[in-house]
């Protein structure tokens, strides 16, 4: 007998442990509890940590009386952070844990990944909990909402769609051709993007807009996240000789290597970089090789925006790190959530959701307002997606003209 009962006994013990873990409730000292799901471990943990810091700052200010309140009696808020490890199934486990163990009233997540959000948004109708995603941009999320608005009534997307960049890049170049900032050439465009929904969606959108103007997409090269050797791709592109080259990476290092190798290879194309110059490390290491480069979108710049500098100081005082765009975006997302809960005057899911939908609030990166697809809107009146140029050792906004801080060089 003793030979085989071992396993079942072990199994039973695990079960008992899990039951314990499952029922050990958290004491509720706060009025409202918000769960956050983001990549706290794994390759994207840096960004996940920035998100956590931004949100913690927002909640801290809120609880200490320094928030931008809607009502006279704002609720005290408790924050519970869970890890998604950049994986959908892990995020779903985290959501279930937040619902059953921490009994949260609202979930913010995923803070970074579109593919995780696509899975996570299913939890909103399932558990009747409002879910607001933070940085994900993929238009697929908005499409999913539009495909069944009733089902996803509790879900909101806290960042604009991936076509935000597309429109900005296309709009900038149309302006640049007209004003002879960039020559039009024989109308070919090429992409080197990282192999994520982020990179690919941007390449597709920009490609579509240019093709409508009679341009040809010469090549779309997707490289694994973290790639830093672009020689094979650049050699190939030199042969294709495009007029515009668009690169999209999320990691600063990919961007630095790309820009440096582009310089070595001396391609003649006009280079437009997307997202990665936002990273502080990029500007630390790249200025001399990146001089004159165009990039989108300069949304967080303590150097030229006093309000951003003030936010940076608060983050630095709290966590000892300098703030980046992810801090700012997460902070704003959390403030949007806090104000919605405050306005709803309770924890009723439908009330919170409808307050999120009615948001009209100016935060660090622009004005937050949601469209019919439950998605934050982009554009000059909402969250602007400006194009910047590296000039000397700083970046200046050169487009749109109404917000430009410098002329293109």
């Amino acid at each position, binding site marked *: 007998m003793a030979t085989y009962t071992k396993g079942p006994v072990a199994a039973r013990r695990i079960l008992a442990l899990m039951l314990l873990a499952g029922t050990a409730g958290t004491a509720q000292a706060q009025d409202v509890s918000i769960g956050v799901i983001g990549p706290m471990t*794994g390759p994207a943990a840096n960004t996940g940590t920035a998100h956590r810091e931004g949100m913690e700052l927002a909640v801290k200010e809120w609880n200490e009386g320094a928030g931008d309140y809607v009502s006279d009696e704002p609720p005290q808020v408790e924050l519970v952070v869970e890890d998604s490890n950049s994986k959908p199934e892990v995020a779903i486990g985290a959501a279930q844990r937040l619902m059953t163990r921490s009994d949260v009233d609202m979930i913010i997540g995923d803070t970074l990944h579109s593919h995780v959000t696509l899975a996570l948004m299913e939890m909103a109708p399932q558990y009747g909990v409002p879910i607001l995603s933070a940085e994900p941009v993929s238009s697929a999320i908005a499409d999913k909402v539009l495909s069944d608005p009733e089902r996803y009534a509790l879900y909101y997307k806290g960042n604009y769609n991936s076509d935000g960049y597309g429109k900005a890049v296309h709009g900038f170049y149309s302006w640049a051709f007209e004003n002879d900032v960039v020559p039009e050439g024989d109308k070919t465009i090429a992409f080197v993007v990282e192999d994520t929904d982020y990179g690919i969606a941007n390449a597709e959108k920009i490609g579509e807009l240019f093709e409508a103007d009679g341009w040809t997409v010469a090549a779309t090269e997707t490289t694994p996240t973290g790639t830093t050797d672009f*020689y094979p791709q650049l*050699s190939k592109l030199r042969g294709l000789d495009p007029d515009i080259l668009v690169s999209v990476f999320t990691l600063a290092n990919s961007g630095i290597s790309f820009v440096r190798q582009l310089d070595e290879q001396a391609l003649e194309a006009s280079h437009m970089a997307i997202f990665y110059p936002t990273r502080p490390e990029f500007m630390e290491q790249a200025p001399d090789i990146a001089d004159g480069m165009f990039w989108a979108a300069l949304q967080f710049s303590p150097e030229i925006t006093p309000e951003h500098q003030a936010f940076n100081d608060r983050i630095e005082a709290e966590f000892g790190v300098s703030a980046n765009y992810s801090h700012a975006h997460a902070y704003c997302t959390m403030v949007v959530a806090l104000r919605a809960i405050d306005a709803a005057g309770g924890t009723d899911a439908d009330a919170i959701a409808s307050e999120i939908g009615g948001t009209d609030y100016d935060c660090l990166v622009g004005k937050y307002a949601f469209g019919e697809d439950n998605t934050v809107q982009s554009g000059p009146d909402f969250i602007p997606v400006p194009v910047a140029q590296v000039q000397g050792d700083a970046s200046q906004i050169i487009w749109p003209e109404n917000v430009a801080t410098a002329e293109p060089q």
Partner: protein
Amino acid sequence: MTAPLFLEMAINGLISGSIYALVGSGIALVYGTTRVLNFAHGELLMIAGYLVLFFAVTLGWNVLLASVVTLALVGSIGAAIQRITIAPLLAREDWAFRVIAATIGLSIFLQSGAQIVWGEQFRTLPYFFDGVVSLGGLRMPVQRLSILVIALLLMGLCALVLYRTSLGRIVRATAQDAEAALAVGIPAGLVHTSVFAISAVLAGAGAILLSPILTVNPWMGVSFLLKGFAVVILGGLGSFGGAVAAGFLLGLIEAASVMVLPTEWRDVVAFTFLIAVIWVRPNGLFAGREA
């Protein structure tokens, strides 16, 4: 395609091929002498990358000094891994699989350990050499060319050690007949440990050469390990020379693939080539020329 572009493609292929050859020949050397497949071999690259970053960037040492110290340390780490995790398993039954399982565990352990110690910051070393060689339409930075040259020199040096020194002689003897080597008094343990050290140094050299153009991160070893394994199988298991040749071949195939297809198909082409070769020539392309 113009001639300079074609040449550039070939050089790109040879450059990545030289790293595959460095990694693969180390794996081949270890397998040839000890019949051990070390799945933590990629992590030696990663550790070397972080060490050289630490010495050259954090402490600001001269790159050459930093590299030499790094190689010495990585060699000792390789030897320690062999002593602590692999040698004790060799005497046990079913050891071949257990070594695989243990080294896979070790690889995860080292990756997450590196992530905890150094964070997941993706970092790069400054260039060792400045300047770009420009010949006709061909442009190639000195830094990249130096990878090829230094890798070739290192593998030449390694071959010299293998074929011209008494250490090399006892390593080859153990590879060719372990029991006979034991019978003439060659201590197998010493040979196994030194082979691990040599292969760790080769991997470490690869990491140092790459660190200015690739990011140093906790997972950097994974893709090189797979490529290294592919190279070892293509070259004929355990053959040092075969692995070197197969490394360059694989690099060229990849470079050609990028020229013709979008980048994301590169590894599919590389691994399909491996499986196709195994169908036709199970013993690899350069079989029968072991260490």
